[in-house]
């Protein structure tokens, strides 16, 4: 990409990118900012991945071998925080930055300077967060869900840095979401009505509303923690009239919509890729939109299913059990629609399609375990065991992460003007597919057998499957180096890509040349 854009920049000095580092620091261009987000996300994916491998290495065998429990807890906490806020969310924002203007026929994002700021907050937020690892007392060690009072009264001093880092990420996310909504609602090409928007755009629009609704709630709950830690309040301390469970209610009121913030854009990506490689229009466009909206609405009334064991009243348990089960309905609609899209299509299996198909199957498996977890009496057995770990990794790794990888392979030719190596892409897919299942499928078994999550050492009957999971994790982790290598090779010396590298691809982005010029859609296209 660098070579392509500099060549172009010299021709149009006034309209091309600024030279050197200032291009990246001061850019207001949606493509540059998209690239920054994606590179940032990939870097933190590697950092969080190394932490995951440390965890799996310690869990390879029973007994304490590599790390002490204190550090193990810091690893599980930082792994979760980095993957959620540093890898998955910025990747989706990066994809939105690149693709939303291209797909709706807009020249850029609606608020370009805000866009620059949204991104540049993130490196500072994560520098602050990761620096806690080197502080006395260590990094946050209370899990990515940071339940009080473990995260307040009993927290290491670095909790304050953690709180400010979360505030900064929240500001970044809210600004990014405002920008996406403003762009989608105001800058669509003439003729592109809401119900003609690509599904990726629709899903991101709904996700952005979720972000605006819940990120302030997260900011609120960490502020309450800050007050409890430093200013003598007792929001979460029963001794002062507070309630530790209040923390969980507020956290999960943010946390459950957050789960959908990490999966709705993925649904959008899959709804772009599957029709392309099935050479058939997406089945049930309207019901796809309504299903996404229904999931978003329901996500606000299911939060306490994360808290079935805290001693909710019976009526509360029943309510949250029923609403949670309801979510399976719109989610099912989406999955059935994807399968109906595939059915009687004319399929080919390029790398993005392989990842998308794996997404459909493995996300569904994650959905099944989610349905099992919704059954409150059974959840008493599953809660806080490896069954839950298996469940959310199935929806996040072969779910969210696979969709991001699929999107990267899918749009890379448009971004760089070059093709990635297809064979290497397929090898990457198969290694990832095998690795991810070897890692996370056995976790269902050890969870059902009774192994709690977040423990550095375990009883002997869990040993065999833990070993399998650890081997799988290393396979999956190291396979991702192929992705990085493939991207670098593609950017540097991939063969040239045509404007429409996938013959079944439809949408405004494919009408543009590859690579997409630095400024696109300066005259809005007409959509009929």
């Amino acid at each position, binding site marked *: 990409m660098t070579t392509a854009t500099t060549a172009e920049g010299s021709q149009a000095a006034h309209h091309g990118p600024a030279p050197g580092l200032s291009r990246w620091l001061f850019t207001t261009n949606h493509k540059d900012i998209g690239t920054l987000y994606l590179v940032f996300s990939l870097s933190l994916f590697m950092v969080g991945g190394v932490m995951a491998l440390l965890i799996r290495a310690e869990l390879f065998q029973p007994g304490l071998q590599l790390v002490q*429990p204190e550090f193990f807890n810091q690893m599980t906490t930082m792994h979760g925080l980095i993957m959620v806020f540093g890898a998955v969310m910025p990747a989706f924002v990066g994809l939105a930055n690149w693709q939303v203007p291209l797909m709706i026929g807009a020249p850029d994002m609606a608020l370009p300077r805000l866009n620059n700021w949204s991104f540049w907050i993130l490196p500072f937020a994560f520098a602050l967060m990761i620096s806690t690892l080197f502080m006395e007392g260590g990094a946050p060690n209370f899990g990515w869900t940071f339940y009080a009072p*473990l995260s307040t009264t009993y927290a290491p001093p670095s909790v304050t840095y953690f709180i400010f880092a979360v505030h900064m990420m929240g500001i970044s996310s809210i600004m990014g979401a405002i920008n996406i909504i403003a762009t989608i609602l105001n800058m669509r090409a003439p003729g592109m009505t809401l119900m003609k928007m690509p599904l990726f755009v629709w899903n991101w629009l709904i996700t952005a509303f979720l972000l605006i609704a819940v990120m302030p709630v997260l900011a609120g709950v960490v502020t309450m923690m800050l007050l409890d830690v430093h200013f003598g309040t007792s929001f979460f301390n029963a001794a002062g009239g507070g309630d530790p469970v209040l923390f969980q209610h507020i956290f999960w009121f943010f946390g459950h919509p957050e789960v959908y913030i990490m999966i709705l854009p993925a649904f959008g990506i899959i709804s772009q890729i599957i029709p392309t490689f099935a050479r058939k229009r997406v089945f049930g466009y309207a019901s796809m939109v309504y299903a996404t909206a229904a999931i978003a609405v329901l996500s606000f009334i299911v939060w306490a299913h994360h808290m079935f064991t805290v001693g909710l009243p*019976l009526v509360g348990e029943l309510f949250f059990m029923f609403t949670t089960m309801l979510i399976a309905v719109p989610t099912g609609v989406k999955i059935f629609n994807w399968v109906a899209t595939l059915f009687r299509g004319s*399929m080919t299996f390029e790398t993005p399609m392989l990842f998308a198909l794996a997404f459909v199957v493995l996300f569904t498996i994650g959905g099944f375990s989610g349905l*099992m977890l919704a059954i409150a009496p059974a959840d008493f057995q599953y809660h806080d065991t490896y069954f839950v770990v298996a469940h959310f990794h199935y929806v996040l790794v072969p779910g969210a992460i696979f969709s991001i990888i699929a999107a990267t392979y899918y749009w890379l030719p448009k971004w760089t003007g070059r093709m990635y190596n297809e064979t290497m892409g397929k090898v990457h897919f198969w290694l990832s597919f095998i690795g991810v299942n070897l890692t996370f499928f056995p976790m269902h078994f050890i969870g059902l057998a*009774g192994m709690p999550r977040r423990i550095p050492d375990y009883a002997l009957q869990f040993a065999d499957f833990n070993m399998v999971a650890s081997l799988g994790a290393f396979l999956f982790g190291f396979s991702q180096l192929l992705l990085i290598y493939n991207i670098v090779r593609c950017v540097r010396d991939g063969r040239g890509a045509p404007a429409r590298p996938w013959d079944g691809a439809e949408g405004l982005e494919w009408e543009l040349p590859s690579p997409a010029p630095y400024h696109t859609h300066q005259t809005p296209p007409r959509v009929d």
Partner: protein
Amino acid sequence: MKPVHGGLLFLAAGASPPLLAAWEVNLPIGVTAISRSVHDLHMLIFWVCVAIGVVLFGIMGWALVRHRKSKGFKPHKFHEHPGLEVLWTLIPAAILVFMAIPSAATLIEMYDRDEGDLTVRITGYQWKWRYTYLDEEIDFFSNLSTPQNQINNLTEKGDNYLLEVDRPLVIPAGKKVRFLLTANDVIHSWWVPALAVKKDAIPGFINEAWTRVDEPGIYRGQCTELCGRLHGFMPVVVEVKPEAEYQQWVAATRAEAEAAKSAAQAKDWTLAELMARGETVYQQSCSACHQAGGEGVPNVFPALKGSAVVTGPIAEHIEVVAFGKTNTAMQAFADQLGAVDLAAVITYERNAWGNDSGDRVTPAQINQALGKE
């Protein structure tokens, strides 16, 4: 956590049941009526998922094999079918209603508020459980008994590695036992898979759960809510005894506690005796945070070696150990340790690791400080 005490503690939790098959893939059925209904629900929802999966992946697989461009398959044009879409909205909804009914029934049974035959208060501490029998005047702590050497891979691990304690919870078979759960510091969660009881123990609040186990035996579980450093090292062990044996146990436990109490108080403790006992208590109750050599963990757990409190006035030292420090991880040990153990551990801290004050703190002094005499 238990210190390095060789193999002595191996035997502590009684005879061990055979190891679970290591490649076990399913939820165990358990030993209570509730655990059996939970298992039934688990299997029902599992088979529902399997059935949906077979149909869904079957159709998908068929399409993947047949509808390929490489086989010259031409794409069809259909992209909507209201009837079909309504159908696959309604069928899952119907399945969910079908699932919701038995789930609600089991849940209602679990929420039975009947007082039962016996009430045990379960209190979570970092990182041990305390069992208080409300009507029996029995009250004790239950600590992990796996030796540190096994955890550090220096000796071979026992069959019940990490799932064994010094004193298990003992309950009678066939009786409805009510548990009242709370915690002293952070949130813990008390779980015994075979009983299908998992409930959070929350500081400042009381939760309720119950069980009725018909089959005598030893059932093991763990804390399931992240509660800090040694979260992975606070197992739950429940020993279910036939009613007669349970009554014997109650009588014996009470008598033992009485005897130990009077014997300890009558005795005149020498410095050496207090030091020896203090070291044991320290390793058991203090070393998890303050570390075996009293060096603490910088910025998290203060060092006791050369500390101002430990080398300062005795009264203040007793105050901190007995009543804890508000808003820190320092617990109140007045209830956890008797006067003798408190005297011993305070004496030990004041003389170990070069603190060498020569102070001898007696159980009488402790009782006086606690206002018990």
